[in-house]
């Protein structure tokens, strides 16, 4: 691994150590209401949660318990109705769109249930995309994208389009993409939801490897194997954390 | 054409002695331009500035000009005088430019033409319709031009329609996938899409006909005022409506068939995932 280390960020896949604030993620009394027609849905009803740097947390609970909403708030693609969200010492709950976008680009890595790779780009280009957005010079980003694909075990599939890859392979490209800009935290929403048991297990072990190499991970999942592989489980029901 | 190139000098009559109570007729455009009305008295002369030789006349009528294509877009004014007066002031003597002759029966025209031309001395007789063809050359050119523009427009709108229809069907790929998954047959799916396309095409072209009709009203109003002519510039006829509706129906249904055939051949699950 030593050949992959970078002076700025330490190991290839570890959190960027942009700050040493602990806890890395901190939610205090977070509420999130939606208007659904004339009614208001209280998706989160006062959630407080800390995630330490280097932790690996699974958020579990029945459908509609608010776990995806929680993940969206931590991912800064949604904002709470009230309460505070702090990531790496920075308040992210009332950022402007421009600030939030830039924050996501540099501090958050997203992995989705349905991979969501750009179908028109190759595996390598998909991994390059966030770096291109962050204005990383072309040579550097190509090199890093190749290293990341190698890390997830796809160095032979660089030139393939997503449609030419299996589900497990697509998800591994998505994970490489999420790591491109040395994020503080990796967020995954049902990352094994679309995969069969065997490929699911591959992703679970990849996540374990990532965490042991220093990456902070939060996953939302129904998959017990995945949940059991994490360091902590957070149970949610009806918009509240029932035990941590 | 009626009064070849006769220039009128108009001098307001107040200062001139009254010498004649004869009347002339002028066209609306002339009346509007020179602020004249029936009963006004004007002096007319054959040459500009020839006030000494001017005749005093009363404007007896303001007339609307006939629809003469060859006169459209020319800014000429027309006045009608009694023949003898025009002959006198223009120094034409006992001459005319042409005679108009009506025959008793239409079958007599050829015989009459022959007989006149046989005895004619210094003139020739023509059929009015032949002369009309000659004077409407301008409009033949313009209508040929319009036809060409029309063809280009039809090609353009065909492509446009085809494109919209293909997009409209493709937008439905998910619905189509859902229908197919529910077990609805390919032919039923294609049929329902074609019916939808046809309805859209017919509704759209009907809207287009109303829009076109309103536009043609505006075009006629505008150009009739601009050129001061009662000619119609744009007429929405049943064949035009028929062409528009059938064209859009054919293209709409055609695009529906093409796009939906392509979609139903694709496995439904692939339609979902793109």
């Amino acid at each position, binding site marked *: 691994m030593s050949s992959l280390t970078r002076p700025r960020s330490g190991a290839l896949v570890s959190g960027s150590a942009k700050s040493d604030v602990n806890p890395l993620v901190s939610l205090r009394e977070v509420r999130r209401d939606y208007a659904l027609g004339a009614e208001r849905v209280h998706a989160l009803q006062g959630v407080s949660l800390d995630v330490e740097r280097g932790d690996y947390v699974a958020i579990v609970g029945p459908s509609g318990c608010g776990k995806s909403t929680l993940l969206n708030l931590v991912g800064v693609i949604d904002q709470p109705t009230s309460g505070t969200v702090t990531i790496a010492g920075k308040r992210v709950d009332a950022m402007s769109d421009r600030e939030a976008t830039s924050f996501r680009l540099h501090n958050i890595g997203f992995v989705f249930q349905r991979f969501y790779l750009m179908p028109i780009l190759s595996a390598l280009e998909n991994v390059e995309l966030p770096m291109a957005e962050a204005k990383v010079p072309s040579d550097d980003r190509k090199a890093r994208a190749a290293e990341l694909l190698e890390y997830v075990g796809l160095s032979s599939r660089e030139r393939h389009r997503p449609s030419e890859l299996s589900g497990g392979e697509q998800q591994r490209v998505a994970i490489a993409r999420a790591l491109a800009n040395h994020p503080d935290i990796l967020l995954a929403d049902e990352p094994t939801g679309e995969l069969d048991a065997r490929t699911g297990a591959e992703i679970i072990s990849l996540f374990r490897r990532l965490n042991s190499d220093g990456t902070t991970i939060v996953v939302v999942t129904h998959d017990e194997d995945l949940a059991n592989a994490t360091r902590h489980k957070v149970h949610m029901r009806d918009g509240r954390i029932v035990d941590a | 054409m009626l009064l070849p190139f006769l220039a009128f000098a108009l001098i307001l009559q107040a200062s001139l002695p009254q010498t004649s109570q004869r009347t002339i007729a002028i066209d609306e455009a002339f009346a509007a331009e020179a602020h004249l009305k029936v009963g006004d008295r004007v002096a007319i002369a054959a040459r500009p500035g020839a006030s000494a030789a001017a005749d005093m006349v009363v404007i007896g009528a303001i007339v609307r000009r006939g629809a003469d294509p060859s006169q459209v877009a020319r800014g000429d004014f027309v006045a009608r005088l009694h023949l003898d007066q025009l002959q006198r002031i223009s120094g034409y003597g006992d001459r005319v430019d042409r005679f108009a002759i009506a025959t008793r029966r239409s079958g007599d025209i050829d015989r009459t033409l022959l007989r006149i031309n046989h005895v004619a001395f210094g003139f020739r007789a023509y059929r009015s319709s032949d002369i009309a063809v000659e004077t409407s050359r301008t409009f033949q050119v313009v209508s040929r031009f319009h036809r060409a523009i029309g063809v280009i427009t039809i090609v353009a709108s065909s492509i446009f329609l085809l494109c919209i229809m293909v997009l409209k069907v*493709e937008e439905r790929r998910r619905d189509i996938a859902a229908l197919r998954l529910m077990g609805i047959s390919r032919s039923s799916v294609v049929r329902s899409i074609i019916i939808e396309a046809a309805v859209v095409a017919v509704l759209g072209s009907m809207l287009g006909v109303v829009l076109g009709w309103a536009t043609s009203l505006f075009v006629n109003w505008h150009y009739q005022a601009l050129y001061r002519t009662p000619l119609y510039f744009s007429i929405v006829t049943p064949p035009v409506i028929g062409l528009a509706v059938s064209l859009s129906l054919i293209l709409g249904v055609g695009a529906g068939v093409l796009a939906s055939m392509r979609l139903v051949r694709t496995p439904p699950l692939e339609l979902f995932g793109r």
Partner: protein
Amino acid sequence: MRAALAQASLIRHRARTLLAVLGVAVAAAMLLDMVMLATGMRESFRELLLSKGFDIRLAPKGTLPFDTDATIPGVSAITTVLRTNPDIREISPVLGGSIHIGVGANDVSAAVLGIDPTVQGDYEFLSGRDVTTADALVANEYLLKKLGARFGDTLNVAAGYDPQTRTYSGQRRLVLTGKVRFIYGATDQPGSVVRRETLEALGGGERRDRASLFMVRLRKGANPDSVRNWIETKIPNVSAISVATALAKVDQRLSYFRQLAFILGAVSLFVGFLLVTTLVTVSVNERSGEIAVMRAIGVSRAHVVQQIVLEGVAISVVGAVIGLGLGLLTGRYLNAILSAFPGLPMAIDFFLFQPRAAWSALGLLIVSGIAAGIYPAWRAASLPIADSLRREAIA
């Protein structure tokens, strides 16, 4: 990367993109033609009027040149007056009329101009000898064909026909010496040229010292409008027509075509705009999930907008370039139709290609391409990310 994404997303739906490009191409062709029609006719007429460098034309009061049979009396007196203005460099009096040329038992009638060959501006001399002598006559191609005569042949020429008495006011034997092309001649019009004094003589006493038209060339830098006013006050029985006033007349007579061009041009532009908007909107709707993901991984709003606008612009530009060629072809075809317009000089082009016309058509299209992309791009960029992702997951 954005360009690559835009390109890839256009290629993804090949048939659809092709149709849209084709649609834009036809709209662009139409637009170019209409810009050419709106500006070309006028420009072509202006070039024609200025082709021999005559800035002002004098016609009998209240008429346009050769619009009527009226003539201006006192050529020598008018010439003397005109010469007193230092801005006037050259004066070319022209007498027009018609002549009859005996060919066997038949007569061929033709338009005739009486000019001074050293200062004329009505024709281009093509071959043979110009009208350097009083007994010379030159003709245009159409008349030469009708006559079936060759240079050096002697022709029986008569003028001033009186149909009542079947007599001519003058008759003379002239030698056919050359071939010319009339600058202002209409199509299929037989025409000929003799020296002005020859035509005056043919017209009997009535046409002595008269001209149908004076053409006046000004010194460089002289103001045509002030000279025109000077002429109209000095010589009251003529209308002095500068190029600008002549163009105004043409504008008025052919306003129909300009308005038609404006309306059809606007319609084509709108159709092109609509096509691009529709295509980009549909493509954005289809990709709302993809766009939400791009936003989630940190792609900025501005970059999403850029990429989508780029798609619209790419369609417009490719369509416009194809349309340019198409427009030139259709323009030529439409011009051929309209060149048969009666009473206009053969050399008038209704559709005149000017680089400026092409640039303005291209510019308009690109602007409308950008405008067409902006609405869907704005919608895409303001998608609520979390909602779009959830909806995508449910679908």
